[in-house]
């Protein structure tokens, strides 16, 4: 098959003539020109008035016989059969302005109100010290991140995306850099390369933005193993297999600066990942996605636990993530009614040394796992109801870790959540959530209210 590259751009730009300003009476030539323009205007106004009168007459005639066009004879040339639609290029007239190349800009507003029985500042899961920003929201009213996103094509071969949340932490306004990546467009052999800062492609929930979560918080296992979401700087390569069903492979090479990696170990090549995903439809109403990922992360003095007196881990983490998502919508009309089941299992093996302040480092070789399952049902437009179950489990370390945050409770940490949300449109959502969280030393009843609103450009969501 021979592809011809003769595509001609349809749009053309009209650039305004620069107007030279001159003062009255200074230039006789200008006066002459003005006079000419004045007489032209008079002439055109007369012509326009005449045309308007003819148009009025034609409209009256058409109103008298509305089906006139039906009686019109059909000529051999189809174009002349109907005079209504005319060929029109997508951008017939476009003014050449700098702003036409502005990226698509969107802002997501997110806020919340939480009530905890236990102080969320002291939240910890014994045996699973949390890294990064993982953990519950603040008590009471607070803003969650306000997210600014921009995206546009760079040129014919690259596209770029920026997501910068503005967060308020301890009264200070901080602009963070969540995503800043460049991706190739139209590489041959079904390949795509992304570079910059991005959410790792491991698992299902990991690369979903905060505003697209079905619950107000991440599953416990994501909080414990990935510090909510694994985000890092690096390179990602994706390949879509030429199969009839969906089969995608991706590999990543990352700096390793964030939990579960840390300290940009290995001279700044601290983490790697491999993922495979497949999925398909069953009839018109069901579709599914299955994924398997591996993450290898090296850590050099990775902090976790308390911010003031962190545990430091140096060593390697091997993590496996298995994900399954099943969506149901009658005849594929998810707007009316739909059901989503989502479950992931994560298993990690940490091998290295943990050190606590003031103590000699101790070797650590531990297997831990966790999983969650959640179901969200929309029985009619706008309203969704959800339930989620979380669990973590792991080996018991030796007694030298007793009385440290690394020593687990006797029973597996668990959490039960219920959620209801209401969306007026795709751009607004209000949510109420309840968690019964028994992951800490004392079980906690948690109630949360959350809002998510977006304005401006809002990119299409992934499955």
């Amino acid at each position, binding site marked *: 098959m021979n592809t011809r590259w003769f595509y001609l751009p349809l749009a053309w730009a009209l650039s305004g003539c620069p107007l030279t300003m001159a003062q009255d009476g200074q230039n006789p030539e200008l006066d002459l020109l003005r006079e000419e323009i004045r007489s032209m205007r008079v002439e055109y106004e007369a012509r326009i008035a005449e045309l308007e009168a003819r148009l009025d007459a034609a409209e009256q005639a058409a109103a008298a016989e509305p089906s006139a066009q039906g009686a019109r004879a059909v000529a051999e040339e*189809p174009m002349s059969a109907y005079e209504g639609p005319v060929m029109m290029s997508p951008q017939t007239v476009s003014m050449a302005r700098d702003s036409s190349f502005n990226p698509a800009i969107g802002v997501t507003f997110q806020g919340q109100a939480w009530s905890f029985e236990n102080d969320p500042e002291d939240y910890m899961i014994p045996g699973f010290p949390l890294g990064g920003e993982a953990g519950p929201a603040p008590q009471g009213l607070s803003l969650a991140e306000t997210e600014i996103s921009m995206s546009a094509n760079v040129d014919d071969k690259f596209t770029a995306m920026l997501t910068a949340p503005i967060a308020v932490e301890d009264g200070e306004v901080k602009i963070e850099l969540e995503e800043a990546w460049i991706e190739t467009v139209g590489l041959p052999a079904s390949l795509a390369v992304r570079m910059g800062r991005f959410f790792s492609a491991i698992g299902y929930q990991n690369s979903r933005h905060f505003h697209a979560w079905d619950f107000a918080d991440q599953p416990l296992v994501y909080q414990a193993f990935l510090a909510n979401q694994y985000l890092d700087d690096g390179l990602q390569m994706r390949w879509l297999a030429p199969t009839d069903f969906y089969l995608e492979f991706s590999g990543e090479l990352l700096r390793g600066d964030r939990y579960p990696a840390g300290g940009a170990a290995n001279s700044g090549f601290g983490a790697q990942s491999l993922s495979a995903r497949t999925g398909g439809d069953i009839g018109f109403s069901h579709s599914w996605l299955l994924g398997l990922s591996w993450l290898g992360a090296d850590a050099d003095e990775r902090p976790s636990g308390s911010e003031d007196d962190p545990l430091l881990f140096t060593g390697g983490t091997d993590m496996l993530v298995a994900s399954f998502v099943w969506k149901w919508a009658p005849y594929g009309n998810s707007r009316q009614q739909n059901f989503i089941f989502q479950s992931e299992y994560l298993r990690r093996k940490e091998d290295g040394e943990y050190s606590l302040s003031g103590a000699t480092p101790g070797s650590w070789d531990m297997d831990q796992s966790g999983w969650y399952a959640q179901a969200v049902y929309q029985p009619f437009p706008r309203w969704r109801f959800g339930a989620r179950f979380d669990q973590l489990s792991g080996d018991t370390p030796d007694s030298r870790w007793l009385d440290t945050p690394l020593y687990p409770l006797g029973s597996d940490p668990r959490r039960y959540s219920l959620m209801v949300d209401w969306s007026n449109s795709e751009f607004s959502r209000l949510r109420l959530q309840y968690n019964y969280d028994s992951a800490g030393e004392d079980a906690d009843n948690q109630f949360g209210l959350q809002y998510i609103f977006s304005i401006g450009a809002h990119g299409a969501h992934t499955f």
Partner: protein
Amino acid sequence: MTRTIKALALLLLLAPLTAVAGLLVFACEPEWSALAEEIGGDRIEASSATHALQDPHYVEARPSLISQVRKADLVICSGAQLEIGWLPMLLSKANNPRILPGRDGFLEASSMVRRLDVPDSVDRAQGDMHPQGNPHIQMNPHNIALVAQALGKRLAELDPDNAAHYQARTADFLRRWNVAITRWEEQARGLAGSRVVCHHKSWVYLEDWLGLREVATLEPVPGIPPTAAHLSALLAELGADGKGADMIIRSPFQNPKPSEWLQERTGIPAVMLPLTVGGSDRALDLFSLFDDIIARMLSARSRSQP
């Protein structure tokens, strides 16, 4: 890193070389896959991302669609942002350079016709706005003729060996289509001037073609489902004598309850019209689609108050 590279290299070696029988056409909506089949015949293989009982505004960017776009030689969609919630995701995930917007393998049907309802300004307070105009262009058969010509040309460019085939089939289709248009316009003569209430603004091109007058929509603003308050206001406006309008129109994927509720109280007949091929038992191809639309409207018109 070496592990990643090794794994990818192995997969590339294992990748089977797919032999394509003809051009693969991925249509966003069934009317365009039906049109591609009319013009391409046995030289193409067309599939549609959506079916007639599915609202093309709201579709998930499902894995199965990604793998279809990956293989496509031509993607044809209504455009004008109808598919904005899912098509951009499919195009960016499919890693297929042939079908990116601006290349030969991408055809936006709505850019071939005169679009109606192009707003002067856009504001989301007015609902789901389409800044480039109403995208449901297939409801005027004259628009289909314009898209057919563009599609015929495009197929001939993508597959020059079969150019004569596509040209002949385009000419043949247009000949039959124009005969059908004359027939429909003849049959629908009595519908001109009818006042219609629509569920969603999906019918402006049909209204423009047949000279119908849209007096109200069941949705308070486009894309927001009908509310009780809005329906009550409509009831007050239209009156209970059945003279407020001639018919209430909805498409097969829209909730029938609001239009039936209004029919019960106003006496204005509610009618379901297929919005595309497959939308009713009789709308089996593009020709029978318009046969059925006109038959259903005539039947509703005969039940409405004079």
